[in-house]
Structures are given as C-alpha cells and as structure tokens.
C-alpha cells in the first residue's frame, strides 16, 4: 500500500536513534535559540543540525526545502531591514531605501533559527518511519486513537489521490473537458469533487467498521506487534538533551 512518507531508507547512526530522542532534539533546536536569544546560539544549532543532516545522508533531500524557504526568508530580510523597531544605524541604501544594521542582524538571527529548525525537523522526518514515530508516541502514552488518526492520514491521502485520478478519467470518458480555459476548469470541479467526497465518506464508514470488528475501542491495555527498535543510548541522550535545555534556561535567568 502506498503511504505518504518522507522516510529515506538508510543505515546511518541517525537512523538508529529512537524517535522520541529525535523529537526532543527538534524541541531543543526550536527552544534554545529562542530562550538564549543570541546570534551565537542560533548559529551553533544550525551547525549542529546541519552536521547531523550530513551524517544521516539526507542533505540532498533537505536542500530543496531550504531553497524553497529561502524565497520566503528574503521578505524577512526586507521587512526587518527596513522596519525593525530598533533600527538606528543605516547599513546601506538602494536609492532612497535605507537598510538598517539592527534589522538586518535580527533578520539574520531569524533566518539561522528557521534553517536549524528545518534541518532538525527534516532529520526527524527523513530518518524515521512514520509508523515507528506514531508507535513510539503511543507507547509513551499518546492515545491509540490519536495515533491512528496520524498514521491513517498518511495512508488515506495517497488513496484519495488515486481515487481522484480515477474520477477524472471517468468524467473525461463521458466527454467532460478538464483542460482549457479557467471557466471550463471551474465547471469541471463539481463532477470531480462530488464522487470524491462521497466515496471518501463511504471509505471512512467501512474503515471504521473494519477497525471495530478488530476491537479498536477495546478498553484492555494494548500490546504491540512490533517490539520496535531500541536504541542503546536513548536514555543517556534524552537526559543530556533535557539537561542542556535546563542549563540554557538557567543561563538565561542568570544573565
């Protein structure tokens, strides 16, 4: 069955780390630069997460995301460079438009933070199977229902996409033009969306029944089919990551 997944097969050390540790790492790359609020901390986390991405061997997959985000981040440079409220020192000017040093530095910090978040989230998504991720969360106490919602969405979306393809074919076979002018495309919308919605409702009903006959709502404590990959140093890593977080909070208040 096709699933919507960014997971890349691999056998790097990063692939072997358990999902929970990776989630904690993601949280830390988001939180610490915000807590510390310095350019150095943002830069440090960018370097760390970038190194990990390279070790995991998924840098090629991350680059397009970085590229796409850069287009948006250009606006951050422009807006903060021009209008940051602390703007005092002019840095350079294009014609009459003046960019300020404070704003540009602030923009740089935002950009570094965002890139390191992208790196660490990519690290999680590209090196963890979605099913492993959900299972790890359920083992940690996430309700199995919510866990199912997450994992089912990943399966249902590709399934809906192939249903929509079939519907498009079926309506084209009845002489409906789906290509061409804008108004023609709009007119084609209802014959496509109608069956798509109805068949996904039917699918949902059947899925619910199929789950229920296998005691999905049973109140007994659930056991797990997969033992899951255990990572030897998971505890050590988690404790140290959380310690780093605490240290950064303490440092922040000391200063």
């Amino acid at each position, binding site marked *: 069955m096709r699933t919507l997944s960014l997971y890349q097969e691999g056998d790097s050390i990063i692939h072997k780390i358990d999902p929970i540790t990776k989630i904690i790492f993601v949280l830390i790359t988001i939180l610490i630069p915000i807590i510390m609020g310095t350019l150095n901390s943002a830069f440090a986390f960018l370097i760390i997460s970038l190194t990990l991405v390279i070790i995991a061997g998924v840098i090629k997959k991350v680059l397009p995301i970085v590229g796409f985000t850069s287009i948006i981040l250009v606006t951050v440079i422009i807006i903060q460079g021009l209008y940051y409220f602390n703007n005092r020192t002019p840095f350079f000017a294009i014609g009459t438009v003046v960019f300020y040093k404070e704003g540009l530095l602030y923009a740089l910090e935002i950009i570094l933070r965002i890139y390191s978040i992208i790196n660490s989230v990519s690290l999680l998504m590209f090196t963890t199977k979605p099913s492993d991720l959900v299972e790890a969360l359920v083992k940690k106490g996430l309700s199995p229902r919510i866990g199912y919602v997450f994992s089912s969405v990943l399966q249902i979306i590709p399934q809906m996409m192939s249903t929509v393809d*079939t519907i498009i074919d079926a309506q084209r076979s009845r002489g409906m033009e789906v290509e061409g002018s804008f108004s023609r495309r709009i007119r084609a919308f209802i014959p496509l969306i109608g069956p798509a919605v*109805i*068949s996904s409702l039917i699918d949902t009903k059947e899925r619910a029944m199929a789950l229920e006959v296998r005691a999905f709502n049973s109140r007994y404590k659930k056991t797990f089919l997969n033992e899951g990959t255990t990572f030897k140093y998971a505890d050590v890593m988690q404790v140290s990551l959380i310690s780093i977080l605490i240290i950064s909070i303490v440092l922040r208040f000391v200063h």
Partner: protein
Amino acid sequence: MSEIEVRNLHFSYTKGQEVLAGITLDLNLRPTAIIGQNGAGKTTFVKLLKGLLKPTEGDIFVKGYNTKEKSVAFLARYMGLVFQNPNDQIFKSKLIDEVMFGPLNIGQDEKTAKRNSLEALDLVGLRNRINENPYDLSLSDRKLVSIASILAMDTDIVVFDEPTIAQDYRGKEKIKDIIRYLKDKGKLVITIIHDMDFVAETFERVIVFNRGKVLLDGDTRFVYSYRDKLRTASLEQPYVMQLAQKLHIGTPLLTVDEFTDWFNKR
C-alpha cells in the same frame, strides 16, 4: 476500415517496465472479451483505447482518429467506457441528470439527450426511478446507472470494465441482454472480464492477454479449446467445457444450452 486499429502498441508506466509489449490487432463489430490474469495489462489496454493513456510506441486508431492526436473528450463521441466502480462517476442528485451528463457533454441537444437517457434507463430497468437519488440505489443498481449513462451517449463503441462484478444472476442476465442489444444495433462491444462462463455465453471473440502480449485471439470456442495455453495464463475454461472434456465428449461444448442439446440428442 475497422472500428479500432491497434498497431505495434507498446506502453510502460515506468521506463524499462513494459506493461504492453507490442500488440497489433483490429477490433470490429463482433462482441469481444478481453481476458487475462490480474496485471496482464487489460485495463491499461482499454485506457489506451480510450485515449486516457497515450502509447509510448505505436499507434491506435479509433474510427480512423489517432488517439495520440485527439482529446479524451473528443473520443468520447465515438467510444464509451463503463468504469468498474460506479461511485467514481456519480455526482448528480437525480438519476436522470446523472445519465444526461455524458450525452450533453458530447453535444447532443437537450431533447435528444433526454430521449436517449430515458431509453438507456429503460434498457437497464430503472425507467421508473428517474427522479431518485442514485446514492439511494443499491450498488448493483448504481452499476446499472453507470452503464445507462454510457449507453445514453449512443457511441459506436462501448467498453465495459468488469461489468458483472457485484451482480447477481438477474443483473448478469440483464447485462447479457444489453450486450446482445448493442450488438444488434451494430455497435462494437469490448469487455474486460474474469467470468469465463459469462464470456462463453455472450461473446463471439476472445482475446487472451498475458504479460503484456496477446496469447490467443479468435472465436470464443477456438480460444477456449486451448486448455493448456489458458493455464499458462492462469485462466480456466468455462465449466461446461471442462465437464464435456471430463466426460470425453468429442465436441467442445461451450454453454449450458449446447450441453443440454447434445444430451437430448444423444
């Protein structure tokens, strides 16, 4: 000119993995069944005929038009295709509107479309339910709606993808009648199907697909007499024919009627 001409047809979804590997054949007015195991390329072949997919090599001519050069909507005037799952097409809240959607799309005027639609619904036995919501009908009746919605387009070629799925005896008989009716009207009927007994009773020509190639092609009786070749394609003969062989009856009997005739004359 044949209704459909297929010339050296090759097709692959992913490069290097040919789903269809060199098919050349003509389809003319004999009702034709395409059989073969799952993955033999039957549905792909039909989608190519309809122009929903374009050949990676070779050409298909439908009524003289090369499918590579014409849009699916254009070809819809000449060829109707009934999909497996009626839920993939039904979107109107009234049966009659659903059936009239195709005819209106291919340029029939309101009056002709209505007349053709009523006729088609009559043929499938749903004439008295034209104002109902298609989704209030059972799945097998919805399948008949989807058949009617293609018949109403009054195309010279009608293709069915697995018409007998989810049909009981009565439904199958109805579909059999429809296919014979279309044949009598001088239309080409092509069907993808797994029900060998249904094929034996309804179709005159059988084409066996195996691994993207045509394994056998000819009169129904001729094709079904090749037991061993059919086995290589994971297909079996119609039950009556198997029975006739087990009883060492010399003539290859195809249908229950043929068998009873033979039995009574004995």
